[in-house]
């Protein structure tokens, strides 16, 4: 594969993640975008194109919300596109930004991800009712968490994993989040706390799941020439991949994320990665529920099938472990404003690889990082590989 141009992340920014924010979606976009642009030492006039990532319109309560948010994202008078792949959007939007620059069409591209979930009353959950098939599933009185609980149960069953083992993920991520200044649900908890928290849709318990949140995050991308001019520590996007599985989710084996294996294969191939476990120094994998971190580590080939729980319990994925996973605190700790949460992971890898993660900096010398997100009817994944 001959990629036309190298692309770097040269700046990143985000807002606090909170259950409800005073700022509108536009205002949050502005805060994150301007922080990303300022951190690169440039101005919005230096931005050639803008990509926006945001999940369902139903949250903000605006149809075609990309059009509504565009001035906040700094896109007035510029080529501007909103991409949308459900929960995978946060890592997919920078991939879209990547091809804006890699194609040679633009030298810089600002990528902004936003989610304002609190606008929807009585509960953001309601938006997800509409993700089910309108004829065959919605009449059953569906709740979004059903499908995740079904997937978690299948995963536990096939590989013989216990709820306690899965709870370790929540404990680790919420603790990591104590060092994240934007975090919504940072906490020092124990496996017993997770096990005692009330079941929402068994086997998912309250402390196994990430909260609905408001927030925004952004990165500025630049071509190689531009990046070297404006940035001391550019972080290169060396691999991108995404894949989607069938919408007939009840016809699939839920225990293993085949779509993620495909997305990872695409990204690894582009980045020339042959042994991901040896080559990936730090990973931000999508963790809206604690079991998903394990599921995704297996799909990414960072753990054997059914073995991710073992390495988690052994502490290998801790911030000072051999393969730190979600040193940011992840969605479980920092919060889950859907698209912005995925983008937060890309920001974290940027900060980790440029040595700017502060108290969250992983112990090992991190040169290669990975961010991943997941969405739709448990069928889509996006993967990005970055190197310093």
């Amino acid at each position, binding site marked *: 594969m001959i990629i036309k141009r190298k692309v770097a992340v040269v700046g990143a920014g985000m807002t606090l993640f909170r259950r409800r924010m005073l700022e509108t979606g536009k205002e949050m976009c502005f805060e994150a975008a301007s922080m990303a642009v300022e951190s690169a030492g440039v101005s919005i006039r230096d931005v050639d194109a803008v990509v926006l990532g945001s999940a369902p319109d139903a949250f903000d309560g605006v149809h075609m919300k990309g059009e509504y948010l565009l001035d906040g994202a700094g896109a007035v008078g510029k080529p501007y596109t909103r991409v949308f792949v459900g929960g995978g959007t946060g890592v997919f939007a920078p991939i879209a930004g990547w091809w804006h620059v890699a194609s040679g069409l633009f030298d810089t591209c600002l990528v902004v991800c936003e989610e304002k979930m609190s606008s929807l009353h009585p509960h953001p959950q*309601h938006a997800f009712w509409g993700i089910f098939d309108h004829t065959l599933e919605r009449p059953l009185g569906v*709740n979004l968490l059903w499908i995740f609980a079904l997937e978690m149960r299948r995963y536990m069953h096939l590989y013989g994993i216990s709820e306690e083992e899965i709870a370790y993920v929540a404990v680790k991520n919420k603790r990591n989040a104590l060092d994240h200044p934007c975090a919504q649900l940072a906490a020092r908890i124990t496996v017993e706390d997770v096990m005692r928290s009330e079941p929402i849709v*068994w086997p998912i318990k309250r402390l196994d799941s990430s909260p609905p949140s408001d927030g925004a995050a952004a990165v500025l991308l630049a071509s190689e020439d531009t990046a070297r001019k404006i940035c001391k520590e550019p972080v290169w996007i060396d691999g991108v991949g995404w894949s989607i599985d069938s919408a*007939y989710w009840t016809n699939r084996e839920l225990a293993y994320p085949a779509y993620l294996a495909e997305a990872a294969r695409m990204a690894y191939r582009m980045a020339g990665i042959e042994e991901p476990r040896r080559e990936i120094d730090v990973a931000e994998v999508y963790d809206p529920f604690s079991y998903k971190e394990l599921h995704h580590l297996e799909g990414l080939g960072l753990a054997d099938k059914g073995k991710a729980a073992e390495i988690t319990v052994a502490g290998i994925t801790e911030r000072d472990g051999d393969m730190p996973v979600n040193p940011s605190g992840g969605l479980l700790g920092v919060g889950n404003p859907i698209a912005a949460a995925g983008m937060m992971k890309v920001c974290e890898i940027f900060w980790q690889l440029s040595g700017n993660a502060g108290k969250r900096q992983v112990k090992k010398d991190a040169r290669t990082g990975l961010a991943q997100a997941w969405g739709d009817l448990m069928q889509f994944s996006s993967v990005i590989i970055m190197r310093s």
Partner: protein
Amino acid sequence: MREEEGVKDGQDISAKGMEHDPVEHNNSKSKRSSNNYAGIEVREDDLRDGRYMSIRYSARFRYRWDTGIAVGRFLEGLRNGKIVGSRCKVCKRVLVPPRIFCELDFAQVDEWVYVGDTGSVNTYSISYIDKQARRISNPVIVAVIELDGASQGMGIMHLLGEVRPEDVHIGMRVKAVWKSREERRGAITDIMYFKPL
């Protein structure tokens, strides 16, 4: 904002603040203060006390979907108390719910078959909340059920009934419980739930 006496248009009023200045009143970090991250948190009591203005808008969108060829057949089958699948000539899979295309080999599918209304539980969960995320007193058991006569792994989502949550297990044999012929409308809810066989 309170009414300002003697303030000319264009005059800077930012120092005067709002009646409830979010920066003053908010317990969380104020805008770009101690760290570099923006955002003002609104708490439940802020809303309750009317500290901030908000607007309400309710929308209800209605749709009337064409079921299409395949799902149309499926619903017609349900009305008659039967579950309809379609069979792909290329990979020979029996697909449920049926479609006129096979996603794995991108072939047209036009052969229709009945499958059984019995099957086994592929996975299940127990829901303590409704679709608005409110807690419910009687939890609902949800399952993916692999139907007999469909290809392996071809499941549909439905509810389980006449069984206690603790007695459900993966691999459990179940059978559809249908509404009466008069009550059936050609909808997935023509099957009320699946019960242990």
